[in-house]
């Protein structure tokens, strides 16, 4: 029989809970922390003092409360001093950012990624960006970790990129490579897919805050989903889950880059949109806008293409809504532009194909964090270790 949690465990738990609260909600008064965390006032005072000593939070007097009585001290995350590095390796760009506790973007570098760039070529580019950003870091800052979002399937345990058809990578040990350079100083590099980490960021501080059942559809060359069910990320046994772009919706359809036929992304991806509109030679957001823009101006063939792809998008969303019964579906990446241009088709398909009980409360939204979701989500992963045991990391 296991004994109850020790004093140390309880304290660690409480420190983590307090730090997580100000990390997610920003500056909070001690009085509010007392009621939100359900802890005693003196406990909050002691925990705050410990975290302040470690340099993770600071306390100050509020500006004006407009109320009588001694104002409660405000606890703020030390966003400028406690930071993580976040990388996002996408089909057509590389991004690196230094992100402070509380989700504040302190510094960033955005680079184009020529198609087909291999891991060995990507790592030095990111390393250069980090070296540059590192020069501006104030003395006495605390680096708590590194997170990386990658467009592909990254294994949870070691960041082994298994299959990333759109980058041309397979079986590349990304986390190890990143950790080897100075990129990964300050602990192991944690990885996840762009869709999964965008979902995480929107769940913590974006459009999905407060929602426990969310599907985030991210479109680039293909389509992936970040799925949150019951408040937890669903990434599967090896961390490869959420590959909704490869659910087969049209068995007689076109061959997919994964080797199968009629996958969802062959009907709703950017190539499908270009093909339906009779265009070619573009990729990414430019490809989607090259069809959506003329459609909005009245071009009939572009409108037909948007309607057709919107229809297929609606079929897939209806399937996902039936399986997961989410309260929120978020359309990010190129899916944002496609959804806004084809919302009538998407919603109509959803309304006629999904079960009434599953669809009646589902809200369809675009991301609140825009394209920064992947970076912020990667940083969330990196902060996870700090939030689990604040005094050990700091």
């Amino acid at each position, binding site marked *: 029989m296991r004994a109850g949690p020790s004093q140390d465990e309880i304290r660690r738990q409480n420190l983590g809970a307090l730090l997580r609260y100000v990390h997610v909600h920003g500056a909070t008064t001690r009085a509010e922390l007392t009621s939100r965390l359900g802890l005693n006032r003196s406990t909050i005072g002691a925990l705050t003092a410990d975290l302040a000593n470690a340099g993770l939070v600071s306390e100050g007097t509020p500006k004006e409360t407009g109320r009588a009585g001694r104002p409660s001290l405000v606890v703020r995350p030390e966003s400028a001093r406690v930071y993580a590095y976040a990388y996002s390796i996408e089909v057509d760009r590389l991004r690196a950012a230094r992100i402070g506790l509380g989700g504040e973007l302190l510094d960033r570098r955005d680079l184009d990624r020529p198609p087909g760039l291999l891991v060995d070529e990507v790592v030095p580019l990111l390393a250069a960006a980090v070296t540059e950003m590192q020069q501006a870091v104030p003395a006495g800052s605390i680096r708590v970790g590194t997170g990386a979002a990658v467009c592909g399937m990254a294994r949870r345990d070691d960041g082994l990129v298994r299959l990333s058809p759109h980058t041309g990578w397979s079986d590349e040990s990304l986390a190890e490579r990143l950790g080897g350079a100075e990129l990964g100083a300050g602990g192991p590099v944690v990885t996840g897919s762009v869709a999964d980490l965008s979902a995480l960021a929107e769940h913590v501080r974006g459009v999905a805050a407060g929602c426990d059942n969310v599907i985030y559809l991210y479109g680039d060359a293909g389509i992936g989903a970040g799925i949150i069910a019951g408040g937890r990320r669903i990434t599967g046994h090896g961390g490869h889950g959420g590959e909704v772009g490869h659910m087969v919706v049209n068995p007689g359809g076109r061959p997919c880059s994964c080797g199968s036929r009629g996958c969802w992304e062959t009907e709703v991806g950017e190539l499908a949109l270009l093909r339906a509109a009779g265009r070619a030679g573009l990729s990414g957001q430019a490809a989607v806008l090259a069809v959506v*823009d003329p459609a909005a101006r009245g071009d009939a063939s572009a409108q037909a293409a948007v309607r057709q792809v919107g229809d297929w998008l609606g079929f897939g969303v209806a399937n996902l809504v039936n399986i997961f019964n989410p309260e929120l579906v978020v359309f990010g990446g190129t899916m944002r532009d496609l959804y806004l241009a084809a*919302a009538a088709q998407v919603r109509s398909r959803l*309304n006629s194909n999904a079960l009434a009980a599953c669809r009646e409360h589902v809200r369809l939204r675009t991301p609140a964090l825009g394209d920064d979701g992947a970076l912020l989500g990667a940083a969330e992963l990196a902060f996870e270790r700090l939030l689990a045991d604040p005094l050990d990391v700091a």
Partner: protein
Amino acid sequence: MSATPLLELRGIDKSFGPVQVLRDVALSAHAGEVTALVGDNGAGKSTLVKCISGIYTTDAGEFLFEGRPVTINSPRDAAGLGIEVVYQDLALCDNLDIVQNMFLGREKRSGLVLDEPTMEQMAAETLAGLSVRTVKSLRQHVSSLSGGQRQTVAIAKAVLWNSRLVILDEPTAALGVAQTAQVLELVRRLADNGLAVVLISHNMNDVFAVSDRIAALYLGQMVAQVKTTDITHAQVVELITAGRSGNLGLTPDPAPADGTGAQPAEAQNPGADR
């Protein structure tokens, strides 16, 4: 969401001389929801909005605000309830900057002079509260802004006054794709922040992208008000063009009092709408 609508209209009639423009119109707008008001040209959408905003008086019918009966006889009454309208032509002054436009006619004073710092701060807070990042300086003239930015300023102006209900008349009509997307996200954010929003639009994608309910006007009658989760594009187009769709809308065999309008238009085929 909330059981009592923020604003509810019942039995609204409005005539201009012999022409009856609105007949027994009912409409409800809920806090936290976008209600899309759709209808063909001349269906009465703009007239209805002008009745709500106090520009026109109604001939009959009642207004309920949070369940209480109220009278709206002038734009001042509407503003007093927290109802703001953003019109198609925006009504912004090109030669004034963003802050001056947002406070035009309702400037804050400190003593005899204008309280510029307070106004600037309130404008900045409002734009920040709407997550607007596209505007560089609050002191730039409106003439230097793009169409989407102007629309953003006009919407922020409507939100500034602790409004409860914001009515938007075709906010995306003159915008390109990227700006339309930004304005739609802004409209959605207004409602997600707890306001009631009424959106007038001809663009079915805009309507389906952001609305929670769709209210369809057909020849001055409100033929249906349904949840967006319960209706398809084709049904909305039928309601707009024919006044009914399946068991929604007008009954198949109405007895028109004046012999005009409200004829079930069987032959009409809802064409390829956007």
